Each structure stands twice: as C-alpha cells, then as structure tokens.
C-alpha cells in the first residue's frame, strides 16, 4: 500500500486523492504522512485492485494540459486502429504501470516518451506514454538552520536561495474519443512545471504521432474564444480566476476560490465593470464546475491561460491564440469528460454564431 500511496502522492492533489480513496471506502487520515502510516499498520489487500484501476483512470485524466486537434473521419478510423495495434514493450516503466517508479529507480532523465499502455474504454482509445523530467524549485534558505553564525553571510547577502531538483515521471496520452473526430493530446502538468515546458512535452507527443505517418497533426483548435464565451455564460460554472485588461490601461488578475462563489457576480468586479463603461478584455480564466456522480461531488477546473498581450500582437493582429487547456482537479473520466464536453459545447455555439 505504501508504494501505491507514494505514487499517488507524487501525482495527485490531496483533495483528489481524498475523494478517490473515500470512493473505495478507504478513509484518509490528516495528510499523506498520517494516511500512509494508517494503512501501513492495517493494509487493505482487497482494495488494491480497485485502487490501481482508479489510479490508471486518473493517469488519463488528472492535472492535464490538453490540446485538441480536429481530424477527418477517415483519419479517426486509421489512428484508432493504429493505436489499437501498438505493442507495449516490457520494461521497468511498464511493469510498474499504472504506478510511477520511485525516483531512485530511474536511470535516465530526458529520454523520449515511451509507450507504457494502450487503453480502450467506452469513451475512446488512447496510447499512454511516459517520460522523466527534472523540475527545479527555488526555496529560501534560513541560514540559522545551516550554520552556527549566520551573521557572516547576512552582511553580504539579502537572501540565500537553494535549488531543489525533483525527478518527475510524466504520463502523456494520445486520446481518440469515439464520439468526436478529434485527437486530444493530454500531458501531465504537475505543480512547478512552466507552460513553456508543457508545450515542449506536447510537441514530443505530437511528433510521435506524426512519425507514425498515419496522421499529420498541425495546429490544435484555438481555445481563446472560449474565454469570453464561458465568462459571458453566467449559468456555466463558477469563475474562480480572471485576468483581463481594461481600456483605462490597467491589467487585473482577480481570484476568488472560496466554495460556491463566482467572480462574475462579485461586487467589486461588477462595480468596476460598471464604472469602466467599456468592455473588459479577458485573457486568463479558471472556471470550476460541480459534477455529482455516485454520491461523490467532483469539482473539476478548466484553465485558459493567455497573456496580457490579449488577442493581438504586431505580428499577429487578432490571431494570438490559446492552444492548450489546463484541466485539473479531476478524479477520473466522469469529471474530465464533463470539462471536455463544456468546451465543445461552447466551441460549437461559437461556430454556429459565425455561420449565422
């Protein structure tokens, strides 16, 4: 159980892990340390199989940076067949799957993505790849913890920062849903990973698909129009973060993450819009939904992150896009597919508006 919990600890936000454990009748304790100890003292063998199934499902759906590519019906058939025919090699990663390997068992960092699983379910077919990266985090060092006489350094330095290297194993999925002519490339986006890095990982998976010569993926769907579409639809989810610029030369970043509250109706936000008199220009949005399933309340989030450059630069007036969506806080298929369905709902509505 400890190995399973450590793998979960590496990959899942604590709220997601708690929901997942409770769904199997495993009541967590306070935090990972106490939960691991609780079940080390009283292992639950009968839960291991179902827990691994849930973890595998989470690998496909948890904390993902997702790009969606539209494809032709014939391409859809070909790529589903191609993925179905892939052979999963035998190696340390595939033997450990759906768990990650402990960092001290990983030999190589930065190797190309390796296939670890092929998944078929009612939603679609997917190829699961893994690769290992190193993330660097910066932490302020309290000198008093390290040396007896910190005054020697305090005269010379205002702050001393330490770099921590963390070995992280990622799962990326090339997913072909049954009900849409599209390919979703879903890549892990753990805390501390920059968007630039996430794009680089996406490019690796796209290259893997293009190298198959079954398909040629070029540009993903531009998700920038979803920003205003979702913001303006007050019935759809709760807006918990919003970045926008104003004609009065201000750039705002508003956050409101208490349960049940929506920035769209927050008094300061409303008064600001009224006082401004001109439309705000959103470029960053996080929206949260509540999805009830099997007596569990799920709260997935969608993030669409642009920059204060907005929709236009000198090089691309009106064409700056958002190519990937951050989909987080998902436990599994139900909440992830819900978010995807909301995205498609708005994309289709926008297409119809353009058509009329």
């Amino acid at each position, binding site marked *: 159980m400890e190995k399973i919990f450590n793998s979960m600890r590496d990959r899942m936000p604590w709220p997601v892990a708690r929901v997942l454990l409770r769904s199997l009748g495993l009541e967590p304790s306070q935090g990972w340390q106490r939960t691991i100890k609780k079940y080390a003292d009283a292992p639950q063998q009968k839960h291991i199989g179902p827990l691994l199934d849930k973890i595998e499902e989470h690998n496909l759906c948890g904390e993902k940076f997702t790009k969606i590519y539209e494809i032709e019906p014939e391409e859809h058939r070909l790529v589903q067949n191609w993925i179905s025919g892939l052979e999963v090699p035998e190696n340390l990663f595939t033997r450990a799957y759906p768990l990650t390997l402990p960092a001290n068992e990983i030999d190589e960092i930065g190797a190309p993505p390796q296939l670890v699983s092929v998944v078929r379910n009612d939603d679609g077919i997917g190829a699961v790849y893994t690769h290992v990266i190193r993330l660097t985090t910066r932490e302020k060092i309290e000198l008093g913890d390290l040396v007896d006489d910190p005054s020697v350094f305090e005269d010379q330095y205002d702050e001393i920062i330490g770099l921590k290297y963390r070995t992280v194993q990622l799962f990326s999925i090339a997913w072909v849903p049954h009900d849409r002519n599209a390919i979703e490339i879903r890549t892990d986006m753990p*805390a501390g990973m920059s968007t630039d890095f996430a794009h680089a990982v996406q490019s690796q998976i796209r290259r893997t698909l293009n190298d198959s010569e079954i398909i040629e993926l070029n540009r993903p769907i531009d998700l920038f129009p979803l920003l205003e579409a979702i913001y303006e639809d007050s019935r759809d989810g709760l807006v918990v973060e919003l970045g926008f610029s104003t004609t009065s030369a201000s750039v705002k970043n508003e956050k409101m993450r208490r349960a049940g509250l929506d920035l769209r109706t927050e008094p300061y936000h409303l008064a600001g819009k009224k006082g401004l008199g001109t439309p705000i220009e959103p470029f960053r949005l996080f929206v949260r939904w509540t999805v009830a399933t099997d007596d569990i309340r799920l709260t997935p989030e969608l993030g669409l992150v642009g920059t204060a450059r907005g929709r236009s630069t000198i090089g691309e007036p009106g064409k700056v896009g958002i190519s990937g969506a951050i989909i987080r806080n998902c436990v599994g298929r139900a909440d992830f597919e819900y978010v995807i369905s909301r995205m498609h709902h708005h994309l289709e509505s926008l297409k119809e508006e353009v058509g009329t």
Partner: protein
Amino acid sequence: MKVDELKLELNAALGTTQVASLCVQLIDQLVHLDDAHGQMLTYTSLQKLLNYPEIDTPLVSAVHFLTSSRYALLEAHGQLIDDDGDEYPLEDVDFNEVLKSGFLVHPGTGEIVIDAKDKVMPYFALSLPKGLEWAPK
C-alpha cells in the same frame, strides 16, 4: 429579536467595558452589510468599518465575542497563504485543528505545513441570526 434588544442584552452581559462598546459599534455596522459584502471580513476590514485606530486586544476580543457567544453574528474561518503566496481556504475542521494544536496539512499537497499558525489568516463571514430586525440606514 430587534437589534436594540440584542445590544441591551450584550451590554448586560459584558458591562460598561470597551469590548462591549466595540461589540455594539460592530453590530451597528454589520447589520447593514449584505451577504456579498460580508464574505471575507478580516480584522483589518472590521477595524476600517469602525474607523478604529489599530487592531488591539479589545477589538480582537470584541470580534471573538461576536463569533462565539449566543450573540454570534460572525463565523470564523481560515485561509492558508502558503510559501508560494497562493491562497487556500481551509475546511472549518482543519481551521479548528490548527487553532487548537497548530497542526495543518496543506489543502493542495497533503503535506504537513511547518509553522502553520504563522501562515493561516483568520477571517470572518457575516452570519446574522434569522429573525434579527433592524432599522435601515
């Protein structure tokens, strides 16, 4: 119950003290806030509502009285601001635990928070009792 009756009862309970006076002044301000404006009242918010010079012991005591007595108009909650500067509202059970023992696990990561009491910001949400009546401003 009318607000004036509430204030009389409160003065009877606390006597002629600075805390009682601050409670009465807070009640006068809080009953005119709507829900939307009373979601996250910090000690600073309450100090500014009263135009009071500083967050001192009498003010803190008055606020606590209005959260924990039968005259409670406020609910106490907590929010973790972690070392990255990110905000995480706490479940009430976790907030109560950190008040009691100083123990807190990070709501996002599940890891133990070192020096949690120094990283949790208390705040108060308006919770006017049902049936409380007051004259409009």
